[in-house]
């Protein structure tokens, strides 16, 4: 469990990025942190594995204050996939890249081999195991970065803007993959601007603005509240916007899911006949 209590953070430049965040992320929960650029989303999640330490307040990971332990120790339980895979890839082969963290954590050679195989297979990149990560496409590099985090099987997985630079098919796969992780009782935290992606996954949403939590709740409630989404400089999913435009016809305005929308529209069409 991750708890942030009255969390404040000010960068050395004087920028006050977080201003009194109170938040609990339960074990096995799927959470999406949303908000405009500069709202403090990435700054917040960087506190969850101790990369940033609070200026005021505290962050507890499984009851341990992040101030008291190193990033390496926290990282054993909290995996963090950065937005840009090019910020971490450096090894000669994909295989070495995925094994990097396992070596840092001191796993035995046999375990490393097994975990690397498992992670490569999971992300469908086994065919690239002897290839240089620099030779891969953007989407493939992102998968290598993800595999290199999943390889040590952390309990919490944080993904910073996972859908950026991914084509539609990859995004679909990523969605399935994240839901699968969550189904395996992993805690998943994603930082994203992608309302369509969140609408499809339907996690608990934290909406941030200017270093504070503006609102929190189920995606359906947050993403259909026009006042809130305007305050956070995001827009509702397209399907919600269509239903809002057609509200005069008596259509509900709290729909975010395409499948649910289809069901409602089909029912209406049947009634008309």
């Amino acid at each position: 469990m991750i708890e942030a209590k009255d969390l404040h953070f000010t960068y050395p430049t004087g920028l006050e990025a977080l201003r009194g965040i109170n938040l609990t992320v339960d074990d096995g929960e799927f959470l999406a942190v949303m908000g405009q650029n500069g709202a403090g989303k990435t700054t917040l999640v960087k506190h969850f594995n101790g990369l940033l330490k609070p200026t005021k307040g505290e962050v507890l990971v499984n009851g341990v204050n992040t101030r008291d332990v190193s990033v390496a120790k926290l990282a054993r339980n909290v995996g963090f996939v950065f937005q840009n895979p090019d910020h971490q890839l450096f090894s000669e082969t994909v295989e070495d890249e995925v094994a990097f963290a396992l070596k840092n954590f001191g796993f035995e050679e046999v375990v490393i081999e097994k975990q690397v195989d498992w992670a490569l297979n999971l992300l469908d990149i086994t065919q690239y195991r002897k290839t240089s990560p620099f030779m891969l496409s953007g989407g493939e590099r992102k998968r290598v970065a993800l595999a290199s985090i999943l390889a040590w099987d952390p309990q919490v997985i944080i993904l910073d803007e996972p859908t950026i630079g991914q084509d539609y098919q990859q995004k679909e796969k990523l969605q399935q993959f994240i839901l699968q992780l969550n189904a395996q009782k992993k805690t998943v935290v994603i930082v994203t601007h992608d309302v369509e992606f969140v609408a499809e996954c339907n996690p608990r949403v934290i909406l941030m603005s200017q270093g504070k939590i503006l609102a929190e709740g189920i995606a359906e409630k947050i993403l259909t509240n026009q006042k809130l989404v305007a305050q956070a400089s995001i827009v509702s999913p397209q399907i919600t916007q269509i239903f809002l435009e057609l509200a005069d016809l008596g259509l509900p305005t709290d729909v975010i899911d395409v499948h649910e929308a289809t069901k409602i529209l089909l029912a209406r069409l049947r009634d008309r006949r």
Partner: protein
Amino acid sequence: MSVFEGFRFRKVSSAIHNLDPRVKFFYVCILFVMAILFTKLLALVVLFFVPLPFVFMARVKRQWLRSLRGAAFLAVFIFATNFIFGYFYPTAFQEITPPIDTLVEYLVLLERAAAMTLRFVVLIASFSVFFLTTSPDHLGLALQQSHVPYEFCFAFTTAVRFVPVLADEAQTIMDAQKARGLELERGNLIKRVRNYIPILIPLIVNAIRRSLELAESMESRAWGASKKRTNLYSLKLKRADYLLVVVSVLMLIIAVYVWLYVPIPSLTALLSL
């Protein structure tokens, strides 16, 4: 990364910021020459205080101190190197006759190492104040008006402009690798140096990638299409600029006079009096 912070330009309205960059560069070059002229600790201590009025007038004290703090590691390295080499090759000093065994000889050695370190600190201090108070645009303009070919001006200003960008990127890369269990300060000296490989490779690869992208984007915006470029702004020397030129020349004259005719005592000699 704080050493780079100390070179990042910040827009502040001050008499120093408004000075002509050519004159400021001239002043910094004079400081550079003076720092190279003297090898005695006493002279270099005096030189250290020369850029201080500049720092206070420009209101960049915090950033300037940060650049000094950032240079501390290299300063310690310079001190250690000078002391060790001075110990094994004492013939480089006129004051010492090998072997080094008396306290006074050790003190001379220490003073010499401290002087060389302070020389480095003076250079960092003066160049830091120049870059803190001169925008890359003004720098480019100054070079162009000094008849340096535009290609070189552009390359130079781009390099200066990208220093803070690279510093930010290096920080992100460090965070990404720490999140995979890398502990930079772990192990012996060789291991610690090796720990930086996962930082340096992505940094270099990204820098090359970025430079190629920049070249393409510049070319697609007709860079170099016209041989004769015009500028919206042009630099003109004002009264304050002429005053700084006079002050700089006077400083140099005094420094050369002192160097030629005034024997500067060493601290060790002064103390023994």
